[in-house]
């Protein structure tokens, strides 16, 4: 007769076995597959200290702790997003970069000349630039990097946009050529780049990661996961990357640039959790402030208020019309909708005055570009109703059903959208229904031009009006989701692309922006602003609207 205990032991054994079964089965094939290290060891031993595996002694100098997110990639040629760029601009660098005033300044290229016709750039490289492992950087490395970025096998999502102006780049990307003929190595420290037209914004393109320099041996030897041990040229090295946990950057002792980084180490905590709480307990030295906490922090009597920085971004959130779909095929209707929205009220009530209302396409604080005096649409419901009467529809009852398409993660639509829909109803008597889909589906429908009206945002990748006005409103641009097509605007945009005189160029863009505003393909709603809290012992921290290398300006004095 089996004893009680025996049975229990068997039961427990079975349960544990079942557990082990599923775990071992799962881990087994995953371990087998992912035999590459899960944790990245330091790539090169710093001359001062040789790190023992698993134990990296903190180098001399201070440490900064920041919140971060897992980057989709650390390969500069594949970078499309801000999260990846934030790390990449610290680990890698290129010919030119942007300073904190958003101006193009020399980086690895100490100087350059542009030919008479504006098409040939000759870059003179510094001779003291080294990769993190100490190997010198030459023009050949740039040639390699650009060739790789334009190689169809790399499948770079951004090479067309940023390197496409270079002669031969598009051919190589399409598989019609094996080399980018416009990139030429003159000698070890001289690089020539030829573009297809005298485009005035070309240098901005080169500040983008896709144009950064890579070490050929590093990439080829590393294979698919070469970014585990990147051999870059930036002010910081990648010391450690634990997926989902943290990224540790350490000062590059060979850094050629100015200033030399004061920080010895930067820890990015990737795990998430409550950033505000971690800031208050001192685990993080700077955090973004969410809408929930903004009121508390904006209160001048709150001690946190002194640690607040308000960082403006070059972004606009808007409602877009499909100008080919009724009732938005009539400009008067679009203007009427513009005038029926009380943006200031939305900003006051929904956003508690933490963001500025938008009346123009570009934010009014675009560097070197002034558009505050351009005419937008004031809030005027009476005039709006009048415009509808003047339009070909005469009355809102003649409108087809209107649907506003938004994207989100389920749940209720954002209060901004609810406010807009409510205002349209109250001021015009128009019932707008809302449809929300997930991001991937939204993109798909956006690309096929399904929507009558949609809500979206746009953020500048570099501080030039081209990145807003041309990319979004040129009739042939793939990013033109409103189907806006104005031949006069097209013509002016094309002129502005190659206008060499910067003042004349800005004047052209002002004219263009006013014309676009007059045609009202958008209802600009608000411009994005980030709120950050920074500990008082952190000096030199900046929050620029474009991702630029900034950690080298930061120091910690505890």
């Amino acid at each position, binding site marked *: 007769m089996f004893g009680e205990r025996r049975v229990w032991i068997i039961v427990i054994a079975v349960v544990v076995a*079942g557990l082990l*079964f599923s775990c071992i089965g799962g881990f087994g094939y995953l371990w087998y597959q992912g035999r590459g290290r899960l944790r990245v060891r330091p790539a090169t031993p710093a001359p001062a200290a040789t790190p023992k595996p698993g134990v990296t002694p903190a180098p001399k100098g201070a440490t900064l702790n920041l919140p971060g997110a897992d980057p989709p990639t650390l390969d500069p040629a594949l970078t499309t997003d801000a999260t990846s760029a934030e790390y990449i601009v610290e680990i890698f660098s290129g010919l030119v970069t942007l300073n904190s005033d958003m101006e193009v300044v020399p980086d690895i290229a100490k100087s350059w000349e542009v030919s008479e016709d504006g098409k040939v750039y000759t870059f003179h490289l510094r001779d003291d630039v080294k990769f993190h492992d100490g190997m010198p950087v030459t023009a050949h490395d740039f040639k390699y990097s650009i060739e790789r970025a334009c190689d169809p096998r790399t499948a770079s999502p951004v090479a067309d946009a940023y390197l496409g102006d270079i002669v031969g780049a598009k051919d190589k990307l399409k598989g019609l050529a094996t080399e980018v003929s416009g990139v030429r190595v003159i000698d070890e420290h001289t690089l020539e780049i030829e573009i297809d037209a005298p485009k005035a914004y070309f240098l901005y393109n080169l500040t983008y990661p896709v144009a950064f320099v890579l070490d050929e041996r590093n990439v080829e030897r590393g294979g698919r996961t070469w970014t585990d041990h990147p051999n870059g040229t930036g002010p910081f090295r990648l010391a450690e990357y634990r997926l989902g946990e943290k990224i540790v950057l350490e000062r590059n002792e060979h850094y050629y640039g100015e200033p030399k980084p004061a920080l010895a180490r930067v820890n990015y905590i990737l795990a998430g959790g409550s950033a505000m709480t971690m800031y208050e307990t001192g685990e993080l030295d700077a955090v973004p402030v969410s809408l929930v906490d903004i009121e508390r922090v904006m209160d001048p009597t709150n001690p946190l208020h002194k640690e607040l920085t308000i960082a403006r971004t070059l972004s606009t959130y808007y409602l877009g019309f499909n100008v080919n779909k009724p009732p938005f095929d009539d400009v008067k209707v679009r203007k009427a909708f513009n005038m029926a929205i009380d943006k200031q009220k939305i900003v006051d009530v929904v956003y508690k005055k933490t963001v500025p209302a938008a009346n123009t396409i570009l934010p009014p604080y675009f560097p070197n570009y002034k558009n505050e005096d351009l005419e937008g649409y004031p809030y005027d419901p009476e005039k709006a109703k009048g415009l509808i009467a003047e339009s070909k529809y005469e009355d809102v009852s003649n409108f087809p059903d209107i649907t506003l398409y938004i994207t989100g993660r389920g749940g209720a639509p954002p209060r901004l959208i609810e406010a807009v829909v409510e205002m349209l109803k109250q001021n015009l008597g128009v019932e707008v229904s809302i449809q929300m889909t997930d991001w991937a589906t939204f993109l798909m429908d956006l*690309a096929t031009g399904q929507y009558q009206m949609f809500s979206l945002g746009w953020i500048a990748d570099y501080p030039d009006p081209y990145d807003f006005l041309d990319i979004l409103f040129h009739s042939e641009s793939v990013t033109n989701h409103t189907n806006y097509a104005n031949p006069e605007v097209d013509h002016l945009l094309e002129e502005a692309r190659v206008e060499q005189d910067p003042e004349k160029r800005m004047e052209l863009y002002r004219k263009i922006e006013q014309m676009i505003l007059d045609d009202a393909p958008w209802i600009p709603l608000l411009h994005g602003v980030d709120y950050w809290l920074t500990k008082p012992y952190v000096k030199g921290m900046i929050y620029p609207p474009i991702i630029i290398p900034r950690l080298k300006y930061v120091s910690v004095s505890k």
Partner: protein
Amino acid sequence: MIAYVLRRLLWLPVLLLSVSLVTFSLGLYGPGDPVQVLLGQRADPELAERIRHEWGLDRPLSVQFAGYVWRALHGDFGASLVKYRGQPVGRLIGKRLLVTVQLNLVAIALGVAVGIPLGLAAALKKGSWIDHLARIVVIGGISIPGFVIAPILMFIFARQLRILPPGGWGGIFSLKIVMPALVLGKGPIAVFTRQVRANMLEVLPKDYIRTARAKGLPERMVVIGHALKNAFIPIFTILGLMLGGLVEGSFITETIFGIPGIGRLGFEAFWARDYPIIMALTLLVAVAYALANLAVDIGYGFLDPRIRYT
């Protein structure tokens, strides 16, 4: 018995093949695709086609699926397309899976350690304050959502009292696991409490219990040795299914507490249509549940003398 187990195991490849085929097709034919998500708003149709071609997404379903199965059999489950470009899927999932399984184990252990005794006590002392407490625990545990309890716990213990860390992961023996385990454990605690109580109430009036008492056995022996043992079969089923769910992460809990687990990875992979990750996760869950089910069925054979397999 062995024959039975082997027969069950032979179904596993069939299961995996069907699950992967369905998931694969849904991914390919469903709305949205990873190239679009990768390119975002700046999607150039020509560039998109080029990248799709480079990734082999423009080939017919049968070709792509065959390729996937072939590579999978060699242990290559591909690399992430969008969320972590180029990183092999195994590496992405492996570490996170460990974290999720550990967290879930602790949650289930809580369920067993708290739920079973509580249910037992509630059944034995029906109508007493323990019974009422159990009822509150059950209703609360099932109906109050995790995203309500989590911030409350965070506020009390991390912000105000400062006795627990506000988030992150430190392994199974660190303080950081306390709050998320409580949040995830409330479900198992509630379920076990309710189930044990109900089953015990059903078993206690039975004749064989009266016989055992009449024989003069100590009460503890009667309750645990006879009553609980017989009440255990439904519990065992639930436990088995929970073990299958070990590999499922909770997106909400992981996000709130900053835990690098499978839940967040899975959610973001679905959001970005990152097919290789989606496929691997789906297969993982299928295998886990299939094996857990098998373990439970085998367990029955030992637990219930009325059940025998041939």
